[in-house]
């Protein structure tokens, strides 16, 4: 975890919808973050290994590799020790997809965001999950 609240938090966001990506850009435009935004789970796995994000936000429904599939791979990487710094994992999903979220909770996530979200509130939501899990 990144314990220094003055240093930038590295946040990796995965969502294939360009309109949603722009809302994340707007909502997380503070200097508090260093952001990377990708459109599929494959890119998440590459950046998890090479860029070492503090937070990963994963949309469940994505092409090539879904957020759910990526979460499974992330858990594998973490269990084999291939990841030196574990990230706080937050899933993003539509309101009606409660079953999907339950599946993700079973695999192990730190929180979830319900879409559509308010870009004005998204930063606080993410930071809440981050600091709650930092204290554990």
């Amino acid at each position, binding site marked *: 975890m990144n314990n220094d609240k003055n240093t930038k938090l590295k946040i990796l966001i995965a969502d294939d919808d360009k309109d949603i990506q722009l809302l994340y850009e707007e909502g997380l435009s503070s200097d508090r973050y260093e952001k990377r935004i990708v459109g599929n789970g494959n890119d998440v796995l590459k950046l998890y290994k090479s860029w070492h994000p503090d937070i990963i936000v994963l949309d469940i*429904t994505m092409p090539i590799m879904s957020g759910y599939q990526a979460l499974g791979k992330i858990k594998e990487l973490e269990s084999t020790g291939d990841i030196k710094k574990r990230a706080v994992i937050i899933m993003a999903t539509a309101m009606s997809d409660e079953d999907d979220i339950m599946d993700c909770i079973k695999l192990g996530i730190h929180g979830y965001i319900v879409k559509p979200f308010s870009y004005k509130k998204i930063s606080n939501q993410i930071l809440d999950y981050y600091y709650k899990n930092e204290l554990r």
Partner: protein
Amino acid sequence: MMDDKNEKIIVSVDVDIKELMPGFLLNRQKDIKSIKEALEHNDYYNIQIMGHSMKGSGSGYGLDTISDIGTSLEKAAKERNSEDIKNLVNELSDYLGQIKIIYE
């Protein structure tokens, strides 16, 4: 008597996303074309994906109606209900034609 479709629907949206709005609305216009094409090919899966996407983004841009239409579109595509899909595309088209956004 005035045709309802000529009446403007006024929606207030945060000025912070003013620059993003034209692109978002243009993408929904593209969705209309894409959904019609997909329907011609009975490609209900892609219609479902487009509905899902609208559902997840509309209210984020302050346009709840887009999310509502997306929700219904996703459901209609899952049920392979072409009549409902056609009606929803018309509804979306009308909405985009009538909407007047005020930035505050």
